[in-house]
């Protein structure tokens, strides 16, 4: 206890010292640096990733933690459920270093990047934004005519950009309809 009392006295002495402002500035700097420390190795995060609960880690550190307890994948800080797939890499402006080959760690998951939504309308057939459509059907001809003719104000949604999931889906759907049409025609011919 006596040692502690001494320690307390010495800290009490230091506090009102003249070097207080520089000390607090240094403290602030230290705090800033600590904000970017990995929660596992306590060093500045390398190959930084952030969990969905917002905690920062080195990717190799987090990977090793998840490998240590595959059955209990919890955030080391707040014990929220986490998974390897659901971490976000942080790309700063610094040089991206080569990964240490000794760490047999798979590459850090890539960020998910989605294209911004296309706003430009489809301007097909030179009719401009108005979208003039005509169709002639047999069946319920007059009604079909009305519904297809009086839709001047509406704009058709633009085609999905190439490579996006929506584009692939549309391609797939158009193939399906093509096959349905072919089967229908075959059936008509046979009948």
């Amino acid at each position, binding site marked *: *206890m006596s040692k*502690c009392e001494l*320690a*307390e006295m010495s*800290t009490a002495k230091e506090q009102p010292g003249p070097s207080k402002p520089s000390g607090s500035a240094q403290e602030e700097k230290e705090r800033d640096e600590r904000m970017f420390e990995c*929660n*596992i*190795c*306590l*060093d500045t995060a390398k190959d930084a990733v952030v969990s969905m609960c917002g*905690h920062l880690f080195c990717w190799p*550190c987090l990977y*090793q*933690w998840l490998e*240590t307890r595959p059955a*209990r994948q*919890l*955030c*080391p*800080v707040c*014990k929220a459920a986490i998974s390897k797939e659901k971490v976000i890499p942080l790309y700063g402006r610094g040089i991206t270093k080569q990964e240490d080959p000794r760490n047999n760690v798979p590459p850090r998951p890539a960020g998910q990047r989605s294209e911004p939504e296309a706003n430009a309308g489809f301007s097909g057939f030179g009719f401009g934004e108005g979208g003039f459509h005509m169709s002639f059907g047999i069946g319920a001809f007059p009604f079909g005519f009305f519904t297809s003719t009086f839709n001047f104000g509406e704009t058709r949604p633009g085609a999905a950009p190439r490579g996006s999931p929506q584009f692939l889906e549309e391609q797939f759907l158009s193939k399906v309809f093509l096959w349905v049409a072919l089967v229908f025609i075959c059936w008509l011919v046979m009948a």
Partner: protein
Amino acid sequence: MANIAAQRIKREFKEVIKSEEVAKCAIKVELVNDSFTELKGEIAGPPDTPYEGGNFVLEIKVPETYPFNPPKVRFITKIWHPNISSVTGAICLDILKDQWAAAMTLRTVLLSLQALLSAAEPDDPQDAVVAKQYKEQPEMFRQTAKHWTSVYAGGPAKMSDLDDKIRRLTDMGIEEHNARVALSSYNWDLERATEQLFMTVMAKN
């Protein structure tokens, strides 16, 4: 891998020394060897508990796989507590087992142990005898824990009635600590403690 463990302990060590708990004398960490694999911890008995005024020394062994696995901690100072073995000092605390998380540090471990001293978990005991006393005779438990604190951890309380009972047994040639354990285990019933002590002596012979 051992490198990560040593690096981290070094950082933690620096941090814990600067922490306000150390300034308040609530916790303390010391190095035992240069390789940072073994440390000595110390926690102060929390106020308003039978452990108040005592200083409890801990053995901390840092595994190669730290911080992915918890440090191995046990009490060196003898203590009367439901979740700590009165014989070996082994601790039953979830964060030192399956509830460990890699972001925990020496500081948080020591503070958790201090919290364990204020809030025992008698339903998840390490020492069944102590836990039974804690549940069935809380006042007796408090007295015993206070007595152990004063004898082994430098606590302030002097309990002459308990000391007298121990002296009665030591006068019969029984080692003091054994006498204390027997009396504590039998709720300070001198007859039953004596009986039990001589039974074990006879069994050994």
